[in-house]
């Protein structure tokens, strides 16, 4: 009997073991995805190719180091410059393997990267700019990074119809090849592209492989020029970079960088806490930031980036006196405290609609009258304009009730909260605000108009909340947003003086002078109020304390901008 009992126990144990073994069986996940692309790039260049500069030998005395980065998105194309695949994750990965002429530092300044120096102005009018690649920049198969690569980039981005994420600048330029490492772009007389410094600064793929721009790089071609090369890619799961021995620069100091694709953001803090990933860069949410802040051994930074939220006025339905009353009645500090201080107590109301806080040219141009809330002044402004308070406290004029519609992207909790704060604050000043949202991005068709059949007119709003994204060189984009008659000016804002300043800035090559003109325009806009800027949106980077030299970059470069400089202690 005892024997039988032991036999039964043994059977049960065997069954349980088999279950776990069966559960553990199956395809090896690293080989699971097809195609599992392991780079065919040799660790050393072909015999026929001689890199101009040997990569520094790895330090043999130290242990191998590896870093795992959790990304919410997955790369969809190793050519990140196509219009359909211009994802942030793609940029974060490809900037480590492909060249860019310049790169943007976290303070929005530029530095040469694969170019010998910042693009050089050869002639001011007509504008001619020279882009010269480093002599020692080579692809990992030994082919030099050359003018051919820049021509490949230009030819696929010089027409608005091209499958290219950014055609601005290229579409109005002619390209001339000077030599194997140098090209020149020229623009028509009187029509300079003042952001010329940003051209050729997307991570560009190799031309000499003869692949198709749009679809030829959906799989890693195995030829790189950056500090890293792709060693293994398991679609849907992970991608690993290892140092590229033909890289001309210093570093990298990490032997393996693995990007794990974790689509559900709620998994990221657990994975970071458990040491399964070392770095995360999720969309910031208050509970997530709090959760990470409570972790030991983890550092985190909140950076306020170039995207900024604002209340834009429809100037055809909201007269200037009302716009000024709104600006006086708004407590922007309170809104920032309510919405942004949970991320960082350093958040401040934005005082400029062209430069964001953190840029060298940023000035807080907020006039004293709008820097603190003044409900009495708001009411006085309305009364001077002929409005009179009704029995319920809401102003009226000529039988018209001062009731405005505010719209934003429905389903965005932060914007909806922002909206409610605006509604309450303006209500206290006698301005009735009704919320009129549409789900998600559907709001932009009535706000900006649409090209559907029948075409929809722009301006179906009184107040609208959304974000603009600034940049290191905002002259052209500012003209689009605030220039008279522009498609990107949904509030039909018109100010001739502002137009003049923005037009002059958009053809001024001296960046200091350009910034001065733009700041002058912003000062004027505080008088005529196309919008009220309120706050910049945050970026959130969290990482294991064993890592050093990480610095978030709120520009398009993102947090992997200096991956080759990272170190593991």
């Amino acid at each position, binding site marked *: 009997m005892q024997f039988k009992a032991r036999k039964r126990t043994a059977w*049960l144990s065997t*069954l*349980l073991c*088999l*279950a*776990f073994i*069966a*559960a*553990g*069986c*199956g*395809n*090896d*996940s*690293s080989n*699971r*995805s*097809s195609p599992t692309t392991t780079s065919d790039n040799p660790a050393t260049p072909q015999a026929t190719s001689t890199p101009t500069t040997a990569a520094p030998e790895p330090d043999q005395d130290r242990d191998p180091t*590896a870093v*795992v980065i*959790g990304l919410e998105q997955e790369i*969809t194309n190793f050519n990140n410059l196509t219009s359909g695949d211009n994802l942030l994750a793609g940029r974060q990965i490809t900037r480590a393997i492909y060249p860019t002429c310049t790169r943007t530092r976290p303070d929005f300044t530029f530095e040469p990267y694969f170019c010998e120096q910042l693009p050089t102005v050869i002639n001011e009018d007509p504008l001619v700019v020279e882009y010269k690649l480093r002599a020692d920049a080579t692809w990992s198969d030994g082919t030099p990074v050359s003018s051919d690569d820049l021509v490949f980039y230009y030819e696929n981005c010089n027409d608005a119809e091209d499958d290219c994420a950014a055609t601005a600048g290229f579409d109005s330029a002619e390209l001339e090849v000077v030599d194997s490492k140098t090209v020149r772009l020229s623009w028509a007389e009187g029509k300079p592209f003042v952001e010329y410094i940003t051209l050729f600064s997307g991570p560009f793929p190799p031309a000499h492989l003869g692949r198709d721009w749009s679809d030829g790089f959906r799989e890693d071609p195995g030829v790189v020029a950056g500090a890293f090369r792709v060693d*293994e890619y*398991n*679609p*849907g*799961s*992970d991608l*690993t970079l290892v140092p590229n021995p033909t890289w001309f620069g210093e570093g990298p100091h990490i032997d*393996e960088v*693995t990007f*794990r694709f*974790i*689509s*559900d953001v*709620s*998994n990221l803090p*657990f*994975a970071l*806490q*458990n*040491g*399964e*990933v070392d770095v995360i860069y999720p969309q910031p949410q208050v509970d997530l930031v709090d959760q990470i802040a409570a972790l030991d051994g983890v550092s985190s930074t909140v950076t306020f980036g170039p995207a900024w939220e604002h209340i834009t006025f429809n100037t055809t339905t909201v007269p200037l006196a009302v716009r000024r009353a709104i600006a006086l009645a708004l407590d922007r500090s309170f809104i920032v405290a309510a919405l942004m201080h949970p991320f960082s107590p350093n958040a401040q109301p934005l005082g400029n609609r062209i430069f964001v806080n953190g840029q060298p040219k940023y000035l807080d141009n907020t006039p004293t009258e709008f820097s603190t809330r003044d409900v009495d002044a708001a009411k006085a402004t309305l009364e001077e304009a002929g409005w009179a308070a009704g029995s319920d406290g809401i102003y009226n004029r000529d039988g018209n009730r001062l009731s405005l519609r505010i719209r934003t992207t429905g389903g965005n909790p932060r914007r909806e909260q922002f909206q409610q704060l605006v509604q309450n604050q303006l209500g206290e000043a006698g301005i009735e605000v009704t919320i009129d949202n549409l789900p998600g991005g559907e709001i932009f068709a009535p706000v900006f108009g*649409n*090209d*559907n*059949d029948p075409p929809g007119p722009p301006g179906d709003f009184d107040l609208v909340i959304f974000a603009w994204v600034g940049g290191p060189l905002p002259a052209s984009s500012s003209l689009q947003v605030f220039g008279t008659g522009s498609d990107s000016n949904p509030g039909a804002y018109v100010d001739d003086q502002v137009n003049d300043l923005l037009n002059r800035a958009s053809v001024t090559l001296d960046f200091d002078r350009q910034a001065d003109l733009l700041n002058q325009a912003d000062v004027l806009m505080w008088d005529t109020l196309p919008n009220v800027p309120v706050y910049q949106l945050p970026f959130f980077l969290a990482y294991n304390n064993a890592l050093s030299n990480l610095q978030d970059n709120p520009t398009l470069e993102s947090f992997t901008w200096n991956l080759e400089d990272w170190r593991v202690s």
Partner: protein
Amino acid sequence: MLAYATRKLLISVPVLFLATLVAFLLVATVDPIAEQRVFLLSQPGGAEQVARLEASLGLDKPLLERYGIWLGELLRGDLGTSTENGRAVTSLLAEAIPVTMRLVVAATVFSVVFGVAVGVLSAVRKYTLFDNTTTFFAFLFFAMPVFWLGAVLKDLGIRFNDWWGRRIFFTIGEQSPRLDADFWGTWADRIGHIFLPALTLILIQLAATSRFQRSAMLDVLESDYIRTARAKGVPQRKVITRHALRNALLPIVSYTGLTFGTLIGGTVVTEVVFNWQGMGQLFLDSLLDGDVAVTQGWLLAVGVSVVLVNLCTDLLYGLLDPRVRYD
């Protein structure tokens, strides 16, 4: 037995056919080119482009004709191509199914084994502390949403790792990327990855299985032949294991087959919570991307697997209980 098996197999054929119809119709009414349609129609000559696109995808044909074409291709082993990544749906399923099967196998086996054990002990020790405690936890786990239980277990797993001073349990993925370990290290890594997601499913399943087993066991224990066995002086242990348990196990076989669909549903959520790249993630991605072919393929695969599991259950039931196959 052969006649019984043949009968069951024949019944499965129309059910499988129905599964294909439901899988097709559930998704076929969704417009797979909705976004392109809006964009193209806003462009000059867009209507012609939309018409060409519809023709190339077969959307210009009547629904039943499209079903016929789809079914014909299905019989040739072609489930179409993902509109998101251009890959064959069959290869996507072939990658995802083994991943999910690991979880399903682990959850089914462990939940049945432990569920039966707990259910039997609860029935035998009815209204004791053990019975009340297991009843409490059974209802507790049964009432818990899968995603929440998964998150709680992740937190507990991380606390355990901290206490142990070494990472035993993992919270994301099926195994560590670029794992460089020996045979035992590889197995430890895989088991460390499967433990928490499997436990999530096991606890949910265990709750229902144990309650079902308890009820079945109580029914049997109160039957006449058990009373007779006891009256004849058969030892209690033998009464339970030889006479009661064998009969009380039969309903569990049916129950396991019936709850297979529920288990797949739980697996979908569990895979997302633990970042497993299995059927759950595939389904979710296909829904979010509006990837019609993948969603249809997924529904079909799950439908077929449920039918097959229930067929197996019926056959097993027939094997275990002669009364069934002689009906």
